[in-house]
């Protein structure tokens, strides 16, 4: 698949947005969807729809097979050891909540420590905060350095005998820092501490290999991976899925239900209660096929070139300050402009058809650390081009012009 012409695979770019060509630089928030994924949802509902895992009629069996096919595709894509280590959730947020809730229930008590980093998205902090309230668990934050990066030393410094789990992002949605997850996991395991990775930002941009990373849990957001909304993935080592109690109760997750007691189903059904996001799961198979067609190497090369180009032009642009200068950086360009509030930047850019995000990007802890109430963020996807970044730069200049009057 020709990456230079990939925009044409995404119907959203065929339409004008407020009379402008869309320059979409908000993929860290959510990516656009290729036609194959949109078509798959339509086809499933129009020709193949049935609920999965229950009935024995033709459509139900076919739908169940399709649903399970995606699980296998995900397993291969992230190189998990077993298919049953893949649990579908309603989002990465639910994946993290699932672990915080069940692991917390079984293994955490008053005074125990959960080690996070200052880079974490609220979805990898708030679920642990509940345990602070309900169980008296302490939450410890590994500190970012001045480059907006987390070193292995900053993690090591905060590990104590009370550390029961380390939960951290693979790729920061603000500074773009890519964390040395493999080394951190190795360190943690040497002290018998399990590791959860928030892979929301890394999964769309990096090669994923669960067996190589060796982490215990990995949360993925499908709508950031050119897939449908309402779907996330929790990868967890089989031993954990067997060991942890179920998260939600309902149909589909049980083995036997009696008035006296209930036994739970096998993996991964134990963690998939109720009717799942069936069409989304089935359509997500197309997202994986789409990513495979591009090839992760070409995708990484394309996005790295864009990122470097974007950094180059924004650094040249006076009064634009890039946020973070991590050793290894992924596809985000967060910035501020002297004297212009990020929300004003985003609104003015929007009038030119340039879609970016402004705010704290669900990272208030990090913004407090940076001494900022908000920042502007342009984030990249496979469909972006150097032309998009030139338009971003031109629109920033326009914004500066308005404010310099």
């Amino acid at each position, binding site marked *: 698949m020709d990456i230079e012409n990939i925009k044409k695979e995404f119907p959203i770019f065929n339409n004008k947005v407020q009379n402008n060509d869309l320059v979409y630089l908000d993929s860290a928030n959510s990516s656009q969807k290729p036609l194959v994924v949109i078509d798959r949802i339509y086809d499933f509902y129009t020709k193949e729809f049935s609920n999965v895992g229950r009935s024995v009629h033709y459509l139900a069996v076919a739908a169940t097979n399709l649903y399970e096919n995606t699980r296998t595709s995900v397993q291969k894509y992230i190189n998990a050891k077993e298919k049953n280590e893949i649990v579908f959730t309603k989002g990465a947020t639910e994946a993290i909540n699932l672990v915080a809730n069940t692991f917390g229930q079984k293994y955490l008590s008053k005074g125990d420590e959960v080690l996070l980093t200052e880079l974490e998205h609220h979805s990898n902090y708030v679920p642990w905060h509940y345990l602070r309230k309900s169980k008296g668990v302490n939450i410890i934050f590994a500190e970012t350095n001045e480059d907006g990066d987390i070193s292995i030393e900053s993690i090591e410094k905060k590990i104590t005998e009370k550390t029961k789990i380390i939960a951290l992002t693979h790729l920061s949605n603000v500074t773009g820092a890519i964390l040395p997850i493999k080394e951190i996991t190795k360190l943690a395991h040497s002290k018998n501490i399990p590791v959860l990775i928030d892979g929301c930002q890394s999964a769309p941009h990096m090669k994923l290999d669960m067996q190589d990373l060796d982490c215990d849990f990995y949360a993925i957001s499908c709508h950031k991976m050119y897939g449908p909304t309402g779907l996330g993935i929790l990868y967890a080592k089989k031993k954990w899925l067997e060991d942890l109690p179920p998260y939600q109760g309902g149909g589909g997750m049980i083995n036997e239900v009696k008035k006296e007691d209930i036994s739970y189903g096998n993996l991964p059904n134990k963690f998939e209660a109720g009717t799942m996001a069936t069409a989304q799961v089935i359509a997500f198979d197309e997202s994986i096929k789409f990513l495979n067609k591009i090839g992760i190497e070409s995708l990484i090369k394309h996005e790295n070139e864009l990122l470097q180009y974007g950094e180059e032009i924004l650094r040249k642009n006076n009064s634009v300050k890039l946020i973070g200068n991590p050793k290894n950086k992924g596809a985000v360009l967060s910035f501020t402009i002297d004297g*212009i*509030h*990020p*929300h*004003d930047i985003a*609104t*003015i850019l*929007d*009038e030119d058809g340039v879609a970016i995000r*402004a*705010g*704290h990007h669900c990272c208030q802890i990090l*913004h407090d650390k940076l001494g900022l*109430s*908000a920042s502007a963020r342009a984030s990249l996807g496979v469909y972006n081009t150097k032309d998009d970044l030139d338009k971003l730069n031109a629109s920033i200049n326009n914004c500066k012009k*308005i*404010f310099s*009057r």
Partner: protein
Amino acid sequence: MNLKELYQEIILDHGKNPRNIGKFENFNKDAKGHNPLCGDKVHLFLKLDENKQISDISFEGEGCAISMASASIMTDLMKGKKEEEVKEIASKFLDMIKEKDDIKTNLVSDDQKTKLMSLGGVKNYPMRVKCATLSWHALLSALDDFQKEVSTE
């Protein structure tokens, strides 16, 4: 008015020289407002005299141009107004920002009305409506002596 025009107008008028900035002594009412989404913060101070008239009003704050311009325009307009007048203007202004096409009150001059209407450019942007209304909610809260910080979330 589209948003770009709105920006040009408020930047020209209030963005660079916001009026009534800074705490003054002997205020007798104050209220804070916070817009968690944008991080806009406003702290409003006012002196309501024995005739229930605002004899002085000012604000401190930080935030986007819309929130600062709105606070600037609002404080300018309210100085010298009676409490009931303030409440009526605020309620008509909030109606206009949310849904109405006009500000139906004879308590503001045509010139003042034009300024207020210019903020109506945010109408179709719910996130930005919060910026434009933050200081107004803080004003009503100060008059009612609410102790809690106003939040637009």
